[in-house]
């Protein structure tokens, strides 16, 4: 191969990386601006909303909170109590004990005075069968609680059982260890009720990180900044993603994912599309794409809405092993979902879903880690060949670094202007420091996890959900056990 061909190849690579980075940065900027506008409009509109009336209305719609649980014995009582203390009136809580091998069920029966009841299940979605059965409480203070004990089938299967059992119009699917604030349900149901021009099929909520926060008896007492860099970096990451990303997608009606930790769905539509897919680890993203697809195919105007208020607080991994396992799973979930629904990609029949959301997700979410790693390898190759133009490289790195730092700073500022959850002195400084160090300390782990995810997806089909061992909602995670199926 002569030098001119090599030069051409190198030039193509250079242009490709340049264009990719420039497009990525431009898209982040556009999304950030749209997000900020949308959030500030939401806050203005929201200041006029009275959430009290719906609490006492006899025509308020019914909601079922569905929370799958697997070996959650340590905190299950506390978590259920928190779920039962929502201020909404017309709702029930369905805990699906997914074949737990511990004493979750016994603990629940004891604490909540449960007895087994006869329950006729309309098996609209096929699931694993019941194990110990369906339980309700004899104590009127806990009449909203339904506990279902079934054979193990995974999170998606447990959610499907919840969908079968629920008699409500809307279902809020959450992770059982998520702390829901008392007015979450009213806020989440509002989009479904207030839009008359389009049908709202699902609403997503913001997930906030509860590590280091004081939680007692199922209530959030105090918000604090955790000490570990890993946790702080995740807080920053969630801020960027939720405040500068998802709000924009919601406005553009291009939201492809609602966090599995907290989302509300129109139950009828969720069941119509067949419920959650038990063959994927990214079931939260997959069901949204499927629901959206159906609405597009039926040519019905619809929307996936988003509530930016901090309503759901959950524990984030504070240990690198579990963190990587979690991100690995997210990567595989994204790949699986995009692959399952590849038909909609660049398909004008699916409008924004196919022409905007899908390509964006594919190029900038799914392919980004791969392109970045290829870039790094490429850089290494050039380094070895001694043909680095240091003046170019240096200035590009500096400008890229500064862009990302500014991004994080804008995210922090928008959080301060909107919800200002971190009130303690010194938190500002900690967040700034985190944003300065993040590209060097945090980002490599994300890349590594994403690459592992890709490798595992293509070469290791047996890997399913990692298992998190818990010590308490605010305490340390002990170790990670990978569950081989």
């Amino acid at each position: 191969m002569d030098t001119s061909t090599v030069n051409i190849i190198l030039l193509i690579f250079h242009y490709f990386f340049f264009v990719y980075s420039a497009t990525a940065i431009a898209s982040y900027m556009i999304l950030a601006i749209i997000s900020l506008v949308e959030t500030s409009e939401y806050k203005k509109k929201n200041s006029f909303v009275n959430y009290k009336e719906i609490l006492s209305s006899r025509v308020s719609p019914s909601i079922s909170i569905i929370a799958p649980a697997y070996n959650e014995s340590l905190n299950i009582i506390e978590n259920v109590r928190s779920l039962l203390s929502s201020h909404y009136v017309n709702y029930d809580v369905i805990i699906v004990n997914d074949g737990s091998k511990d004493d979750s069920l016994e603990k629940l029966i004891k604490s909540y005075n449960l007895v087994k009841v006869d329950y006729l299940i309309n098996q609209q979605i096929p699931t694993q069968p019941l194990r110990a059965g369906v339980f309700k409480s004899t104590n009127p203070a806990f009449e909203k609680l339904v506990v279902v004990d079934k054979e193990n089938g995974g999170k998606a299967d447990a959610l499907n059982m919840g969908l079968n059992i629920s008699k409500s119009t809307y279902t809020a699917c959450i992770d059982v260890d998520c702390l829901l604030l008392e007015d979450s349900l009213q806020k989440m149901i509002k989009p479904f009720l207030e839009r008359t021009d389009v049908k709202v099929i699902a609403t997503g909520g913001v997930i906030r990180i509860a590590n280091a926060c004081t939680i007692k008896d199922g209530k959030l007492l105090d918000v604090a900044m955790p000490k570990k860099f890993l946790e702080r970096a995740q807080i920053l990451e969630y801020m960027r993603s939720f405040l500068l990303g998802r709000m924009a997608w919601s406005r553009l009606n291009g939201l492809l994912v609602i966090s599995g930790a907290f989302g509300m769905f129109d139950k009828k539509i969720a069941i119509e599309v067949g419920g959650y897919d038990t063959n994927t680890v990214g079931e939260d993203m997959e069901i949204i794409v499927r629901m959206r697809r159906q609405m597009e195919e039926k040519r019905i105007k619809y929307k996936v809405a988003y509530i930016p208020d901090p309503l759901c607080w959950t524990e984030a991994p504070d240990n690198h092993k579990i963190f990587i396992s979690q991100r690995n799973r997210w990567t595989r979930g994204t790949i699986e979902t995009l692959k399952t629904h590849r038909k909609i990609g660049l398909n004008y029949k699916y409008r924004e879903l196919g022409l905007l959301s899908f390509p964006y997700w594919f190029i900038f979410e799914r392919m980004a880690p791969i392109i970045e790693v290829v870039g790094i390898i490429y850089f290494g190759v050039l380094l070895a060949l001694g043909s680095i133009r240091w003046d170019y490289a240096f200035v590009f790195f500096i400008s890229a670094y500064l862009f990302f730092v500014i991004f994080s700073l804008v995210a922090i500022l928008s959080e301060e202007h909107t919800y200002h959850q971190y009130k303690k002195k010194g938190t500002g400084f900690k967040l700034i420091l985190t944003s300065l160090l993040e590209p060097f300390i945090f980002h490599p782990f994300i890349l590594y996890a994403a690459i592992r995810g890709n490798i595992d997806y293509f070469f290791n089909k047996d890997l399913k959900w990692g298992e998190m061992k818990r010590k308490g909602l605010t305490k340390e995670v002990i170790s990670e056990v990978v569950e081989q199926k």
Partner: protein
Amino acid sequence: MIDFQYIFEYFNGAPLIIQIIWMVSCVLFVTAVVLIIYLKVFRSHLRKNEKIVKTFQKKYEELLITYLYAGVEDEEISSEQQSIINKLKSEIKNEFKREIVITTLLKLRNEISGEMADAIQELYCQVGLLDYSLIKLRSSSWYIIAMGIRELTQFNIEKANKQVVKYANHSKSEVRKEVQLYLINLFHFKGLDFLDDLKVSLSEWDQIQLLEVLQRSKDQEICNIIPWLKSENDSVVIFALKLAEIYNLFETKEVLLELISHKSENVRINLMRVLNHLSIFEAKEGIKRNFNKRNKEEQIAFFQLLENLYDTNDEDFILKQIYNKNFEIKFEALKILKLFHNEQFNNLKLTPPESEFVKIAKFLQNN
């Protein structure tokens, strides 16, 4: 020692693209520094603010409570009260403090009724907050107009009616909603006249808000809802149906029967509930006639109606429906069969024509 000469030469000698990116980087760097400084300043500002707000809140709370208990007989304003009024008058000249005073007044106003509530309203007018609210109505920002209308609603200012009603057709839905809430909060059912010409849809959320306010008002004399049941606007019809249900408006029976063949599914589903609640027997035949053309939700709602208003004429219908493909309908039909034709139900149990019958029958047997 930074050699500025070297940097300058380097910069001039570099290719254009590098020059541009270096300039961009400098801009970014400055931006980053500015943002960091702004962040620190803003956070400390917020912290200070919170403390200040708390202090003022306490101060105004005490002033308010003292005012309320410093009154004398004969509705005259005592001297102590007057001094508090004067004090507040000067405080509210500052916008920040004004908002806190309003919040404090409302905090209490929303929880209590009776003479004390009226006294708070009087205070609102005496202190001059009323004038500030009226000024808000003249703003060009929808946000401020809506806030102004809301304050007038919260403090029950009837005399502002003409100024508020001007905005009934404002382009922003938030403003229109505030006008509607003003009208029904102050004039209860008479305030619902806006339904006559409403062109936009009234969302479920809005309907719930309106209904709750109406139910709370002491004046429960409902007006004629029949024109609304015949409205072109489906959401108005649905709202009227809710009113018919909540206030047991039996006199609307004829119109309700006509609505059985309304073109909107949503209307028909809401109608089913009202027919059930008002026990309107005559509805059954009309619905049974084109039962299969209706959607699932309507059909299931109909069964709830049937359970309540069952008579022997419906037996054939039920016997047909127990073979319906939909599980829920099958269940409802079998439930009714068991309730009213127990012998037939038991016969079916012994020789179930379908496997699902066994499951359902067993469940019905035990519950």
